[in-house]
Every structure is written in structure tokens, then in C-alpha cells.
């Protein structure tokens, strides 16, 4: 078996409770369990992790960069959607 045969996985890590899992990168692995172990070894070396997700890259459906104008630009003029007129108390923590 060579690395060429190993599928690609996307790695998501949650640093601590209350935060969302964040995409940190990708890696090759023989299967999901090994992807989890590889993710642990490759992406959590600095100790900043409480949870890991791995997802087969092939399972992700991505938006087409060529269509980003129709996808995203119409929202740029709708500033009234931003809740910038509220103050969030510090005690609320991570939102």
C-alpha cells in the first residue's frame, strides 16, 4: 500500500468546551480511525485540543469560487442584518 492509495481527510479541532470545531488542515490515512490517530499526532502536538473530528474530504460539497458574486455579494449591502448595535456583556463568554 502506498500513500497514493490513502484517502484524504479534513481535520477539525475544538480547542476547548464552548468553542466550535475549527478546520485546521487535512491529511492522508488508511481509514477513519487511523485518520483520527494521525490527526492527533499531526495537529495536536502543542496541546491545544479537547476534541477532534475527521471527515473524508470527498464527503464535502463545496461552493464554486467562480460563482461567488451571486453567492455572496448581495449580502454586502444589507448592513441592517449585523447586530452591531448591541453590547455583549463579558460574562457571556464565547458566542
Amino acid at each position, binding site marked *: *500500500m*502506498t*500513500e497514493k492509495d*490513502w484517502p484524504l481527510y479534513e481535520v477539525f479541532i475544538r480547542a476547548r468546551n464552548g468553542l466550535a470545531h475549527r478546520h485546521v488542515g487535512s*491529511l*492522508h*490515512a*488508511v*481509514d477513519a*480511525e*487511523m485518520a483520527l*490517530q*494521525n490527526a492527533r*499526532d*499531526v495537529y495536536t*502536538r502543542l496541546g491545544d485540543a479537547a476534541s477532534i473530528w475527521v471527515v473524508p474530504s470527498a464527503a464535502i460539497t463545496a461552493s464554486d469560487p467562480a460563482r461567488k458574486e451571486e453567492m455572496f455579494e448581495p449580502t454586502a449591502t444589507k448592513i441592517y442584518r449585523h447586530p452591531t448595535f448591541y453590547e455583549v456583556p463579558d460574562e457571556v463568554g464565547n458566542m
Partner: protein
Amino acid sequence: MARHGTHHFNYVLRLADSPCILGQRLTEWTANAPAIEEDIALANIALDCFGQARALYGHAAHLGGRSEDDLAFLRDAPDFRNHLIVEQPNGDFAHTMMRQLLYSAFMEPYYEALAASRDETLAGIAAKAVKEVTYHVRHSAEWVIRLGDGTEYSHQRAQAALDELWMYTGEMFERDSLDAAMIAAGIGVDAAALKPRWDETLDEILAQATLTRPADGWMISGGRTGTHTEHLGHMLSEMQFLQRAYPGAQW
């Protein structure tokens, strides 16, 4: 604790030598593993081993009056007390993973038991090490299962690794007079008592891997009294080169 003197020092030194030698072996995979992800995994395991070895050498240095570096770099092969299995060459990837599994599946219950030692420093080192070794068992077991239950060719190579390494496993469960003295003092662990648990762990993994457990034939031993296979000397010549060529070198 002082009344146990030399025994205590020798016991800790034995514990330190195996992870030191295994860590050094594993570093030979750096930049040579089958995939970069596995390269990093092996380096991580090696670093865990060196961490355990350093803590144990530090403790031995405290008990025996020789520095940590002296113990690691200025003793010759017959003075090393590691298990023979950890000095064996890496062989192919299946061989390295099998060696890791056979050894780590033994060290996991060993460190668990050692965490209850009356020597509090030793207990603390063991409590930290057990988490590391638990992961080493998991990682190597997953590979052994995938190689054993993989293709016909990977199965053949995994079985060959198991067959070749089997004769080095008997040594892990030996109990000599030094062990007996340390067990009696409440400091040491009775390795012989860990055999049933090791058997159980291994049988479960080998069954999943569709590998055949070899019959218990002749077992080689001697590492823990300084009689080593030819491989250790070659390895030390590389590991100790810097301190031998430039005594006292630091950076």
C-alpha cells in the same frame, strides 16, 4: 529509602534503559516512514519514550550519584539493562509496529502497577507514562490489525514479524533477585503477575488481525543483566558518538 541503596538505583536504571533504547530505535524512522503522517506518529512515540527515560535517568542519577547524561551516554553495552526486544532492528514497518505492540502491551499494566510504588517519584513518573503507553498500544494495535487483516502480502509480513519477535517476549515477565527485593520493599512491580493481562490484550488483537500466536518455545533473555544481542553496540556507537568524541559537550 536509602537503605535499599544499590538495588534501588539498579532497578530504576533498568526501567530507564528500555524506553531510552526503544526511543533511539524509533528515531531511525524519521524521514523514512511510509507516509509523513506516520513519520510524525513514530517521532511522537519516540519522544514519549525519551521523556520517560529522562525522568527515570534523572531519578537514578539522584539515587546513584551519576549524572543523567553519564548514564545515557557513557555506559557501554554490557552496562545497559534494557529488554532485548527494544534493541532489535526496526525491520519493516510491520516489524516495528509488532515490536511496539508486544512491548507497550506489557508496559501499560507495568506502569499502572508502578504508579502505586512506595517510591513517590517513581509512582509519579509511572502515572504520567501510563497515558502515553496506552496510546502506543492503541496506535500499534490498529496497525497490526490492518496489516494482519489486510492483503495476503501484508498478512504474511505481519505474521513473520510476530514469529521473529516472539522469543524476545519471555524476558519481559522474568523476576530475578533484584526484582524480588524491590517488590518486597514495596517499590518494584512483579512483572510475572502481568502475564495474564498481556496474554488477554494480545490474544484479542491478534484474533482481530487474523494472526496466529506462536507457540511458547525457547525464550532468549539476558538484556536485564547486561548480555545483549549484537545490535545494541552498533546502536550505542551512534547514540553516544557526540559525548564520546567531545566529552562534556553541551548545547
